[in-house]
């Protein structure tokens, strides 16, 4: 039992995969995922995933970048070491705009990329999935449903049966 990490089922094409995903969802499984070479439109609904939280992460970083920039510029040029430059005010905000903008964008970008890695718990180089040769095709032209053995509804034969009924062309267990 414990030697099995999950069961893997392959489907013909994105359409089939989508239907299978709906079946699995209706069956009430929670610890499962579908694997495809490219994102499939509507799959999120098919799997009943909640919308990504990433937006909030990015917004947080944007705020950080903006306030950080404003603080750095005003502090450095009007508190830490005020210098009369061309007779301009120490805190010369019109001149600060470009840098504030750039830093805001930079931090947001960090938020977007590293936030995404975080949510996808990447990098993760040792994933039991990789024990399966078959799933490698998920990055080529394979369309798979994977249900983890730790799912409460998981049953070696019943689950396989469900997947077969959903139109799986191939079913194999993945060892842990």
């Amino acid at each position, binding site marked *: 039992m414990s030697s099995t990490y999950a069961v893997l089922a392959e489907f013909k094409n994105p359409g089939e995969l989508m239907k299978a995903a709906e079946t699995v969802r209706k069956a009430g499984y929670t610890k499962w995922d579908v694997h495809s070479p490219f994102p499939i439109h509507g799959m999120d609904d098919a799997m009943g995933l909640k919308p990504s939280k990433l937006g909030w992460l990015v917004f947080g970083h944007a705020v950080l970048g903006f306030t950080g920039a404003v603080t750095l510029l005003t502090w450095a040029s009007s508190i830490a070491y005020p210098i009369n*430059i061309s007779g301009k005010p120490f805190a010369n905000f*019109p001149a600060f705009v470009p840098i504030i903008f750039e830093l805001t964008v930079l931090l947001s970008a960090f938020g977007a990329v590293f936030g995404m890695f975080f949510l996808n718990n990447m990098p993760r180089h040792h994933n039991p999935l990789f024990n399966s040769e078959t799933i490698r095709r998920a990055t080529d032209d394979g369309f798979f449903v994977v249900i983890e053995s730790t799912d409460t509804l998981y049953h070696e034969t019943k689950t396989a049966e469900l997947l077969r009924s959903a139109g799986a062309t191939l079913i194999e267990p993945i060892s842990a």
Partner: protein
Amino acid sequence: MSTTPNTYWRSLNELARNDEYRQLVEREFPENASELTDGYSRRNFLQIMGASIALAGFTACRKPMQKIVPYTRMPENVVHGNPLHYATAMPFMGSVTGLVVTTHEGRPTKVEGNELHPDSLGGTHILHQASTLDLYDPDRSRGIRQGDEARTADDFAAFCASTFTRDKRVAFLSEASSSQTLNRLKRQIAGRFAASTWVTYEPFGEENVLLGTAMAFGAKRRPIHHYDKAAVIASFGDDFLAAGPDSVRAAKQLAKSRKVMSTEDGMNRLYVVESNYTLTGTNADHRIRVKESEIAQALFALAAALGADGFGGHTNAFTGNGDIARLAADLRGANGAALVTAGADQPPAVHAAVAAVNAALSAVGATVTYAALPFADAADQNAAFRALTADLAAGRYDALVMLGTNPVFTATGDVDFKAALSAVPAVVHLASHIDETSAALPSNGWHVPRAHYLEMWGDGLSFTGAASVIQPMIQPLFGAWSEIEVLSTILTGSRTGGHDLVKQTWTGSDWNRILHDGLQAGTSFPAATVRLTGAAAIRAAAEALPTVSGLEVAFKADPKLIDGRTANNGWLQELPDTITKITWDNVALMSPTTAAGYGVEFPRASILRAPADEEPMVAVNVNGKTLELAIWVVPGHADNAITVYTGYGRTHAGRVGNGIGVDVNPARTSSSPLFASATATRIRRTYPIASTQDHHSMEGRPLIREASLSGYREKPDFAAKMVKVPGPIDEAGQPISLFDEQTFPDHEPQWGMTIDLNACTGCGVCTIACQAENNIPVIGKKEVKRGREMHWIRVDRYFSGDVNGNPQVVHQPIPCMNCELAPCEQVCPVAATTHSDDGLNQMTYNRCIGTRYCANNCPFKVRRFNFFNYPKTWLIEGNDPEVVQMAMNPDVTVRFRGVMEKCTYCVQRLNRAKIETKRATGDSRKPADGTVKTACQQACPSDAIYFGDISDTESVVTRTKRNERNYLLLEELNIRPRTSYLAKLRNPNDATA
């Protein structure tokens, strides 16, 4: 110290020239030749000075041994970091000018004019300012030599004792000198030898003037002009503003009556009759351009028109000439307040005629007085020199003593002095360098290193007769001798120190007082009473003068190098010529029309065309010689005439001066050294010329604002009104800006500058003074040609009017304007250039990373960038850089490669003054008005630069800024320059207009 002497600062890349030069050095300076006579071997001499760029530590061994008296009330003992100021005087062409020398720890670093001295009144000219660099010239001769052998001082004394015995026939050749001590010894010599002759040889001296006055009055008299007393001045080829024995006094007096501060003020009127455009010509209200050979004729026509003695009924090509007629009328109209002068290089007859004309104008005693010179030789020294050369060649002398002078180089082509030398059994040449003459000495000839005036005791008379003592600032660097030391050794057979010799002359005088003040108070030449006796002789001489019908070549002394004596001075070589802006070369100057004849188009550059990389050349055939020179077009030059400058093409000047330009002396003849008939043909070769200003026109932009005196009286604020500043004006009267400007604290002085374009003559002394004060490197011809000149204050020159006819020239000194809203500051990414509380636009060298953005964004292009490590080549790598390092001002950083630099109103002087004021008053940081001067302001002979605290409403500078002539350059950019200009005025004769 690098073993291979680098190419100095002539060029950064011509390292190939090194070997050649090293051989030269080895031949000329054998190892032991560089032993110093004061007991320090060269090696520990260097140890003492330290091998680094550190500029201190030299005092210990260089302080003069005799007691000299500081100019200021400072304590005698040196406070490190505080410079001392001593009065002394610089001899030049037979006259001395009183100076005050700044010394740092025993190193003279800067000269200023002596305000107590009547011929300086605090002003200086370019040769004064550049003289400190000559002192520290590493190419100076390092010791006594006989042939190629090094000799000691004792050897020389022994030689003198054995050679100069009473039975000998001895000839002496000296530069013009008014030194009382020298003349005392000279008198002793007279009866000392079996036969002796003394010839004063000064290639561009005043001998012609003296001969002229001798012709007129029966005795040599020096005319002394009082320009300040003259309402109308007419100069016939007399460039009296160019650096010369009397130029500082002339500039002061001329400027005095040109500082028009209100519509009531009057202004003198200057006519200049000349061929080439000279500095004086650019300041003329009327310039009459005639060929060099015609100047005399124009003068004689004037003399006739004015009914001067001896010219009754005289007629020539200029008789009835409109300009001359109007000039005559104007001079006569000035009734007594008129003055006519002629260039010292004009023939004697001209000067005689000038004497007659001045007499006719009853100017004598008013605008011109005559002085009898105690030291003048009665005989015609030009003739005497020719005779001496012949006698020497004929072996009529056993010995020749040359005190200075470089006749082998400077003599005219028909005088073969070199050949004459070889016929003399014993020759002694006192010279600062192994120059052409020393190099041409016979194998047993003696070369004695000549002392610089800053390292010797001496004395002399100023042009107007003020008596001064020359006191040394430093021990002779290379065991050099002064003229009087050599003379006395020849007389006595043993060396007597200059100090004792001079002291003997001045026994009974208030020695300390004289040293302190720099002159003997109240001394001057008494005005000699003169009677015009030679009318007939003048007429005869005048009508005998040759004229040239076709193309003629005029040979003029270079305004910077004179006869070549200063050719090894990098500051002077790199100082742009006042008219052509050429550096490091001499050229064939001619008018656009003449140049067109050789297929050269004018202008050389315009907004639509960049200048060619190299200049076309002509071969000028004159007196059987051929001069190949680059053609340079000078608008306003007389047509069908070419002007060339002497002093170039030297072969033994040193690493700076060797091979610069073309030597024109061979083409001159002693009979007519000034001009000669010539033919010229364009040749295929081209030649690169490094000029710092390619464009001759202001492109109709209101940069230099000018009006006639009458125009100014009608509309006094014409200058300010010339430009409409767009947009509304704030309550401070400034154009509004988008942001609230920073304000300046009240406890700080607010520095500002005003430059009076009407007083400025354009002589360029400000540039050299700035260079000396601020350790500005000399970068060489190649770099200047690339437009990388480093001068912090430059003098812009523009031509206006008909460039093919008789255009006018205006000069505009451009330092950093220290804009309050400086465009350069905001663009620097690292805040290396910022604004100080006292309103300076300051450079932080050690913060600068060299993006050059500030220079790009400077509307005046006054910022200078160290594209290479310029100081390295002459402060670190030279074959003994320590010597040059001594010339540096320790108060100013020497800038490194990749750093931007610029004028900061001599911030080191300002801060010193602020600190001293604070120490004195306890709180105030505002020095009293006039107590702090910038280097350019202090050097200016015409006081054209005003500087001070503009927060003080009564300071001189503030009052000038309130003047109606005041205007801001590029005011419309709302950058608020702290430097403003007073518009230029001319005073044309409406009758001529």
